[in-house]
C-alpha cells in the first residue's frame, strides 16, 4: 500500500510538472508582436485618445512640452522589456492627469490598443485584456522577434 501511495504521489507530481511544462511556453510566447488587440478595438480607442490624451501627448502621439511621446524610439525604449500590465497600470494610476482613474478599464484598454496600432504592432483576433494581471502575461518588446518575420 505504501508503494502504491508513493506511486500515486509520483504520478500526481509528474503530471503537475507536465501540465506546468505544457503551459509555460504558451504563457512566455505572448508579446506585443502576437496580435494582442483587434483593429476594431484600436478604432474604438482612437476617439477616446483624441478626447482624453491628445491635448498633452499630441495629435500624432509625438508628445508635448510636458508630456512624453507615445510613439517612436523613446516610447518603445521606455517600455521595452516590461509588460503591457506595467503600461496599463501606469495609465490607470496617473491618467488622465487631471482626474486619474476616471476612465473605465475598457476605455484604457482601447486607448492602449490604439497606441499599439500607431506604433505598428500587428493586430489580431482577440481584444486586449482589461485586467493588469492578465496584461502582465504580454511582454512589451520594441524589436520584432526574428522568428516572427
Amino acid at each position: 500500500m505504501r508503494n502504491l501511495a508513493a506511486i500515486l504521489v509520483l504520478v500526481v507530481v509528474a503530471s503537475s510538472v507536465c501540465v506546468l511544462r505544457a503551459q509555460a511556453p504558451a504563457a512566455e510566447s505572448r508579446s506585443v508582436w502576437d496580435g494582442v488587440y483587434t483593429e476594431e478595438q484600436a478604432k474604438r480607442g482612437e476617439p477616446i485618445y483624441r478626447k482624453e490624451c491628445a491635448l498633452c501627448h499630441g495629435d500624432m502621439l509625438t508628445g508635448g512640452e510636458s508630456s512624453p511621446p507615445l510613439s517612436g524610439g523613446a516610447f518603445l525604449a521606455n517600455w521595452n522589456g516590461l509588460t503591457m500590465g506595467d503600461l496599463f497600470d501606469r495609465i490607470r494610476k496617473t491618467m488622465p492627469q487631471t482626474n486619474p482613474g476616471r476612465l473605465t478599464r475598457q476605455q484604457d484598454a482601447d486607448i492602449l490598443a490604439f497606441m499599439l496600432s500607431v506604433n505598428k504592432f500587428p493586430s489580431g483576433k482577440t481584444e486586449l485584456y482589461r485586467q493588469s494581471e492578465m496584461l502582465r502575461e504580454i511582454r512589451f518588446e520594441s524589436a520584432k522577434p526574428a522568428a516572427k518575420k
Partner: protein
Amino acid sequence: MREKNRNRLNLVLVSSFAGLLCWPVASSAQSQPRNTEWPSYGADLAGTRYRPLDQINAANFSDLEIAWRIKTDNFGDRPEYKLEGTPLMVNGTLYATAGSRRAVIALDPATGELLWIHGEHEGKRGGAAPRQLSGRGLAYWSDGKEERILYVTPGFRLICLDAKTGVRIPSFGDKGEVDLKQNDDQDIFPDLITGEIGIQSAPVVAKDTVIIGAAFREGMTPRSMRNNKGYVRGFDVRTGKRLWIFHTIPKKGEFGYDTWEKGSAEYTGNTGVWTQITVDEQLGLVYLPVESPTSDFYGGHRPGNNLFGETLVCVDLKTGERKWHFQLVHHPLWDMDISSAPILADITVDGKPVKAVAQPTKQGFLYVFDRVTGKPIWPIPEKPVEVGSVPGEWYSHTQPIPTKPPAYSRNGVSIDDLIDFTPALRERGKEIASHYHLGPVYTPPTVSKLEGPLGTLTMGTASGGTNWPGGSYDPELHNVYVYACNSCIEPIGLVPAPKEVSDMNYVAGTAGKEVVVLHGPGENAGADSPKPPKKRQGSGYISLNIDGLPMVKPPYGTITAINLDKGEFVWQIAHGETPDVVRNYEPLKGMSIPRTGQETYNIGTLVTKTLVIAGEGNVTTTPDHPRGAMLRAYDKMTGKEVGAVYMPAPQTGSPMTYMMNGKQYIVVAVSGGPYSGEYIAYTLPSTGE
C-alpha cells in the same frame, strides 16, 4: 469666502503635520563657503549650474556609488512619474519639492534622512491647476539670522516657510501665503478656483525680492483666443507685499501696446514667464525670458509683432521697470517660448570685458547680448523669412537671426536631414516627408489638407533644441554647455476650429482627424459650426518614425560647448547611448554606427572644476547594463567621455552638486515610464571601502 475657510482648515492640518515631523537641524547647520553649496535652482542667480568642485573627477567618476535615495511616491495622493526638481543645499540642509502634491522636504545632505515635510492640500484649486506635480524647485533666503524657504503651490499660492522647521512664517502675507491669483492687475477668469494660471518653476529671491512668473496649459488647441495674462511680479520676502509688476502684454498707454493691432492686447493671454528667471544683483537687473502668446501656432487674432511675446526683457530689480528688451521672434507662430534661464557671463570680446547674457533657445540659437545695454555682442540682423498663406494670419516678413555663434541644433527640416542609414530607409523618410511642407527655421505653419501638405514639418519648435533645463556656464573657460534635442520633429498643421471646440479661427490639428471636442451633457455641434472633417479612409496615422527609428539622421541629441569670448563651438558630442530601437534594428546589424545620442528634451547639464555632467533621457538595455540610463561625465575641455554611472531610470531633473562633511555629492532626479520619481545622491566610496 469658501476659499478662505479651506485655507484656514489646511493651515491647521499642515501645522500639525509639519510639527510632527520636525527635528532640529542645528547639528548640521554650519557655515560653509557658498561655492560648496547649491543655494538656488541654477546654483546661483546667474543661472550657471556651475560649482568649482573636483573631488569627483575624471579618474573616479565611474566609482560613484549611491549615498542615499528617496522615492517621492508618498508625497502626494498618487505617485509622480515626472520628477523635474533640482534640490538646494544650503547651510547644512538639502531642500526639494517632491511628489504629486508638490510637498517641500528637508533632508540631511549626507544621509538623506527626512528632517521635515510640508504639504498644502488645495482641493479643487490644486486639481484644476494648469501645471501640476512637483515642479522644478524652490528658493532659499536668509538675512543671516532667519532662514526661509519659498515655493509656489500647483494652485498658484506663494508659501513662505521657516527653513529650520518647515512651518509657515505667519508674518508673511496672509499667515504665510500670498494668493498669486489676486492682486495681479487682472481678474483671473472664470474664478479663483478654476482660473487658468500657475507656475512650475522655482521662485527667485534677489536682494529681499521674490520674483514670480506665470504659466498656463499647453497652447496648441486653446478653447479661446482670450486667456489670463502671465504678468511677472516682485514681492517683499519679509512681508509678502507686492513691490512691482511687469505687464508682459502691455496695457493701453504702455510701451509696446501698439504691437497688438486691433486692440488684441486686451483679450490675448498667456505670454508668461514659466521658466527660470535670472538676476544680476550687482547691477540690480532682472532678465525675463517670455513665452508665446495665445495661441502657439495661430496668431490671426493678434495681428502685429506682439511684444513682449518670445522676448528677452531686462527690468529693474527694485521697480520692475523695463530697461531694455529684444524680441527673438516677431509675431510668434512656432511655440518658441524662451524656455530656459538666461545665463549671465562676464566675458572678453575683442580684448574688452563685457557683462553679457546668453540665451539658449528651442530654435538652437544662442543669443548673446551686453546685459547692461541689450546690444547684441555679434550682429543679429533681420532676415527675410517665408510668408505663409493661412487665412486671417498676420506674418512678420523678417526675423532676427544671429550671425554668431552658429545654430547648435537643427531648426528646420530638409531632405538632407532625413535618415540615411540605408537608401531604402532614406526613401521611406522621403515618402513621409512628402506629405508635409519643409523648410528652414521660421517656415510658417500651413493649413492641413488631406491632399497635402498635412502641415509644416518643423524642428527647433515646440519640443526641439533646448527646453526648460537650459544650459550651464563655466566662468573659468567662458564656455556655455548646452544640451539640445536634434531630432524632436514637430508637425504643425492647422485646421478650422469647430465652434464647440474653440472661438479661434484655426487650431492645431491634422486633416482627416477630428478636432478634440470636449462635450458637456446635452451639447451638440452648433448649426453654424464647421462640420468635422471626414475621416481619411484606411490611411491611418502617418507615423513620423520608421519602425521606431527617428526619421532624421543622427545625432539625435547633443551637448555643445560654446566659447562666449569668440562665439564659436569648442566641441559638440552626441549625448546618450544609441537607442535600443537603432542598435537592435535587424537591417542595420553589422553596420558600424557611431553613438547617436538620444531624442529627448529633459536634459540639464552640470559643470564642475573639470567635468560636464549629464544623465541620459532614454532607457536602454545594453550588454554593459540592464534596463536603465547612465549619468555621464565629460572632460569639459574636450568633450571626451571620462566616466559613467548607472541610474535605474532616465534623468528628468537637472543634476546639482555640493560638499558635505568633506565629501562631494551629486544629486539627480530620475523617473519616467514605469519608474516613479526618485532623488538619488551619488558620492565616492569612503577610504578603505
